[in-house]
C-alpha cells in the first residue's frame, strides 16, 4: 500500500478522500451510490461524509469490504453502523445494477455478437434475458420484503412472523449464471466475433461479478447480523 493510513491497516476517517480512491479506484462506484459527488477537493473522508450527510462509519465499512479481501467488521464497528445508510446503499446499488451495469453489458454483448447468425444471436440473448430477469426478481424481493422489514424493525413496528434469518436467500444461482455467461463469452463465441468487443463484454462481466459479490457480502455479513441483534433487543 502506498501510504500509511493512521494506525490501522484499513481505511480511516482522517485520510484524504482522494487517497482512498487512489488506493482502490473501484470505490468510485461506491462514492456515487452513497451520494458523494466529485469536486471534493482536499477533504478528508470524515469531512466529505459530513458534507453529504453520510454516516462515516458506514461509509468506511463499505469501502473496507470492497477493498480488503477477508475484511470482517468487528462488533463495535457494527454497532456504530447506521442501518438506514446501509439499506440506502443497497437500494442505490440495485438501481445501478439494473439501470446502468446490466444495460452496459447488454450493449456490449449486442456489439460483440453482431456478426453471428440470427439463431445464435437468439440463443445468447435468451440466456442473457433469463439472467437479467432472475437478477431483477432477486432485487425486487429485497426491495419489497426485506428492506421494508428492516425499516419496521428500526421503528419498532415489526410484526411477528418474519425474521431476518428467513432472508437466507440463495445467491448461488445468480452467480452461476453470470459465471456461465463469462465462460460462454470468453471461450465459445464463434470465430467471426470481434476480439475487442468480446474484451469489453468481459470487462463489464468481471466488474459486475465482483461488485455483486461485495453486495452479497454486505447483505449477509452486515445487514443480517445487525438486524438480527436488533430483533433480540425488541
Amino acid at each position, binding site marked *: 500500500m502506498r501510504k500509511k493510513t493512521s494506525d490501522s491497516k484499513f481505511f480511516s476517517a482522517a485520510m484524504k478522500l482522494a487517497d482512498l480512491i487512489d488506493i482502490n479506484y473501484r470505490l468510485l462506484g461506491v462514492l456515487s451510490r452513497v451520494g458523494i459527488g466529485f469536486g471534493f477537493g482536499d477533504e478528508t473522508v470524515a469531512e466529505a461524509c459530513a458534507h453529504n450527510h453520510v454516516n462515516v462509519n458506514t461509509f468506511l465499512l463499505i469501502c473496507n469490504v470492497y477493498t480488503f479481501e477477508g475484511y470482517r467488521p468487528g462488533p463495535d464497528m457494527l454497532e456504530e453502523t447506521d442501518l438506514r445508510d446501509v439499506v440506502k446503499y443497497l437500494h442505490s446499488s440495485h438501481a445501478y445494477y439494473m439501470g446502468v451495469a446490466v444495460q452496459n453489458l447488454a450493449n456490449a454483448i449486442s456489439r460483440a455478437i453482431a456478426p453471428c447468425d440470427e*439463431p445464435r444471436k437468439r440463443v445468447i440473448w435468451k440466456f442473457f434475458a433469463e439472467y437479467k430477469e432472475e437478477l431483477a426478481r432477486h432485487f425486487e424481493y429485497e426491495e419489497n420484503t426485506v428492506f421494508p422489514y428492516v425499516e419496521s424493525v428500526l421503528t419498532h413496528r415489526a410484526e411477528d412472523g418474519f425474521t431476518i434469518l428467513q432472508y437466507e436467500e440463495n445467491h448461488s444461482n445468480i452467480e452461476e449464471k453470470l459465471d456461465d455467461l463469462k465462460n460462454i463469452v470468453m471461450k465459445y463465441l464463434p470465430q467471426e466475433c470481434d476480439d475487442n468487443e468480446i474484451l469489453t463484454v468481459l470487462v463489464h462481466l468481471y466488474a459486475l461479478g465482483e461488485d455483486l459479490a461485495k453486495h452479497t457480502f454486505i447483505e449477509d455479513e452486515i445487514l443480517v447480523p445487525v438486524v438480527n441483534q436488533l430483533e433480540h433487543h425488541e
Partner: protein
Amino acid sequence: MNKRSVLLIEPSALLARGLESIFNSQGEFEVVMVLPDFSRGSQARLRNLSPDLVIVDPIVFDYGSRANGRALLAECCDCAVVALRSTPLDEEGLRQYDETLGLFDDPVTLIRKLRSALESRQETARAEGDELSAREKEILVCVAKGMLNKEIADRYHISIYTVITHRKNITRKTGIKTVAGLTVYALLNNLIDMNDFE
C-alpha cells in the same frame, strides 16, 4: 472422511489380497473391486465404476500394448492410475503412470504414493482443456434438451451415478454449470440443431 475407492487390476491373488489387507488396516483407501485381467468385460466394469484411483499391474497388458497401458485405461476412466511393479519392467514404460508401487514398499510409503498420485492427477485434470468425449457430447445434448438424469440413464442403459459423473466432467471441461448455459454451449458448438431446439 470418505474412503477413496481403489480399483485393483492384478492377476496374482496373493498380491491383491496383500494390498487389500494393507489398505484395510491403514484406512483412507478401500479396494472396491479386483479385476484379474484387462479383458473387455473388465473394461466395462471399470467404466461403470469410475473409482478415485486405479492400481494396475502392467503385466496384464500384452507386450505390444504395454507402452500404451495408461492410454488404454484412460479410455475407460478419468482418474489417477498407479502401476504395481510385480516383475522387472523398464523405467520408460513406468513413466506414463502417476506413481509406481514396489513390492517392498512399506505401508506408509504405499499410502503416501497413492496420495501424491491423486494430487498430481487433480492438477493435470485442472490444467487440461480436454475435449468432450463422444459419450459426454451425447449426454450434453440430452441435458440441453431438458432430459432428467433418470431419463438419460435409461436411454443409454447406464446407472444414474454414471450420468452424474459424466455431467460433472462436462462441467469441469466446459466450465459451464447451469442447464441453460449448457444449452447455449451445445447450440454454439453445433451439437444440437437450432431448429430442433426451438
